[in-house]
């Protein structure tokens, strides 16, 4: 099985140094690009490869790059989105910490293809080890002449900077990320104009996920057809999948795109922990609908056909000894806290949902609550809010109401959570934040 993203990762988990990376063929893709390919050639290979963005939305990468206007203003920017804060997601960390140079090589090639002058890695605050590793790697690449002026004598110049965030999930949304990089509150921007035309500092900008960019060097080296054939389905390449929750061997693995959820959980994750049964799973992080069937191919189109989204491809498992209402309450607490607060349905609606779920957990659910939750799930769905955050937050809720409806009803009818020993103490019964929690540490959730 070919593993172009992780094959050279060291067993001890330490990052591959520049020398080690070069010894296994590192930066040969960049040399190939700079010694004869045009930006258009690179773009065509990436388009042909059918690579789709690994940040969650699955947008075709080559197509995205092609929207950068050829004769547009300068400087142009390439940004690596390394904000990985989607609950349940831990795939980019692996690449950042273990193969920093493959990411940097991918970024340089992507930057060349779109004619970028400056590039940034936008890294979340909490990845302290990754920050240290990426800093070292950028420095090594500069010293070796892969970054800076006249790269490898080609006449192409590219600067690269690491920006570490200050902690806010919405920074991962690409237009909010741009505002954050400009030193503003991370509030999403209206589209159009799309970042490809008017992005960072008003200049053409491409934002790509860590994993997406790591796919670029092997695509250049081995070709588009090779990349397409790595997959078991029509969505090309390999994918870093992960599984967490009550399974025997939680972890992350690079596998051909399109392995089934069953294989992931039963083979790679070693099956459920003894005494626990599978009830469902979020296939790709907190913002995806539950799947309750195991025989689903984990690619973009198959997961969509099964009623969810591949998202980040990192699975969170719900077992029979974990309360589905509590599970969703935890997710909505996250979304309530992390809403950027810009538009009303999301800012007001998600805390309300969280409060209803908390009440249910504490035995204070009321008969109309399920209707109310469903109304919210529709009202915050696609088209009603300023960005994709709120619709994402509704995905686990709406699917839980469908698949685990009896459990919601039981909470209300029995006036208790069948799974829980202690009440949820973050918030009181039907409403307001307990005073001692009003810390101002989290600006968006102090009402």
């Amino acid at each position, binding site marked *: 099985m070919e593993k172009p993203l992780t094959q050279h990762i060291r067993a001890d988990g330490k990052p591959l140094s520049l020398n080690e990376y070069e010894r296994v063929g590192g930066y040969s893709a960049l040399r190939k690009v700079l010694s004869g390919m045009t930006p258009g050639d690179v773009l065509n290979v990436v388009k042909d490869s059918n690579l789709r963005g690994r940040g969650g939305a699955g947008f075709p990468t080559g197509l995205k790059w092609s929207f950068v206007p050829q004769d547009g203003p300068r400087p142009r920017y390439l940004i690596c989105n390394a904000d990985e*804060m989607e609950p349940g997601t831990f795939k980019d960390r692996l690449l950042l910490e273990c193969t920093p140079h493959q990411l940097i090589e991918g970024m340089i090639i992507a930057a060349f293809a779109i004619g970028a002058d400056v590039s940034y890695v936008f890294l979340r605050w909490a990845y302290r080890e990754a920050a240290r590793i990426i800093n070292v790697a950028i420095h090594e690449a500069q010293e070796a002449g892969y970054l800076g002026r006249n790269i490898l004598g080609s006449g192409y110049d590219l600067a690269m900077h690491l*920006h570490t965030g200050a902690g*806010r999930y919405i920074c991962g949304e690409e237009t909010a990320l741009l505002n954050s990089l400009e030193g503003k509150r991370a509030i999403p921007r209206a589209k159009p104009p799309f970042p490809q035309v008017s992005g960072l*500092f008003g200049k053409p900008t491409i934002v790509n996920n860590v994993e997406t960019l790591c796919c670029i060097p092997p695509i250049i080296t081995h070709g588009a057809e090779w990349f397409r054939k790595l997959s078991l389905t029509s969505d090309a390449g390999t994918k870093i999948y992960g599984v967490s929750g009550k399974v025997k061997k939680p972890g992350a693995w690079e596998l051909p795109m399109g392995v089934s959820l069953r294989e992931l959980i039963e083979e790679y994750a070693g099956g459920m922990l003894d005494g626990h049964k599978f009830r469902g799973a979020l296939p790709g992080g907190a913002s995806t609908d539950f799947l309750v069937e195991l025989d689903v191919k984990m690619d973009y189109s198959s997961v969509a056909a099964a009623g969810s989204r591949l998202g980040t491809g990192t699975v969170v498992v719900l077992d029979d000894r974990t309360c589905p209402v509590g599970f969703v309450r935890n997710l909505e607490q996250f979304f309530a806290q992390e809403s950027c607060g810009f538009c009303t349905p999301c800012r007001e609606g998600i805390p309300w949902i969280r409060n209803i779920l908390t009440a249910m957990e504490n035995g204070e659910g009321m008969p109309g609550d399920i209707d109310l939750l469903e109304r919210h799930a529709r009202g915050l769905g696609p088209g009603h809010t300023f960005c994709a955050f709120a619709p994402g937050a509704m995905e686990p809720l709406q699917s839980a109401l469908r698949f685990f409806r009896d459990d919601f009803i039981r909470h209300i009818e029995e006036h208790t959570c069948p799974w829980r020993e202690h009440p949820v103490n973050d918030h009181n019964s039907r409403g307001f934040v307990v005073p001692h929690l*009003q810390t101002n540490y989290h600006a968006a959730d102090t009402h």
Partner: protein
Amino acid sequence: MLTREEILEIDRAISAVPYRKAACIEALKVVQTHRGWISDESLRTVAGYLEMSVDDLDSVATFYNLIFRKPVGRHVILLCDSISCWVMGYEQLRERLRDHLGIDYGETTADGRYTLLPNPCLGTCDCAPALMIDNDLYRKVTPEMLESILSKYL
């Protein structure tokens, strides 16, 4: 007043962006690293140095989870409270911390040693539950491990 060290670090951040104000998040982080938190006084100083209004800077400072506009203890405990850690029992860690240190979310111990905050997913879900203390990540934490972990932070 900014120290020479702070100015050096802030200037480095300014050099990576087209205008001063764009470096404000980094500047806040630099000052917070040196002083623990962002007081009104620090806020005014940084705003002046970046040639932006104090209110503008405060709107940014209060937006981000990890910019502290209130004093914190010498060590900040960030307990992951997201889904995989919840499934794997992070609530027990919170309880143990509450029993052991007498603090809950948003509170600081009386001796000013620790502040406890919840934090969204730390991205190490296969090793849940997880927490960070200052810059250090701890994985697969059990309540029994907490005391010895905490003792490293004086």
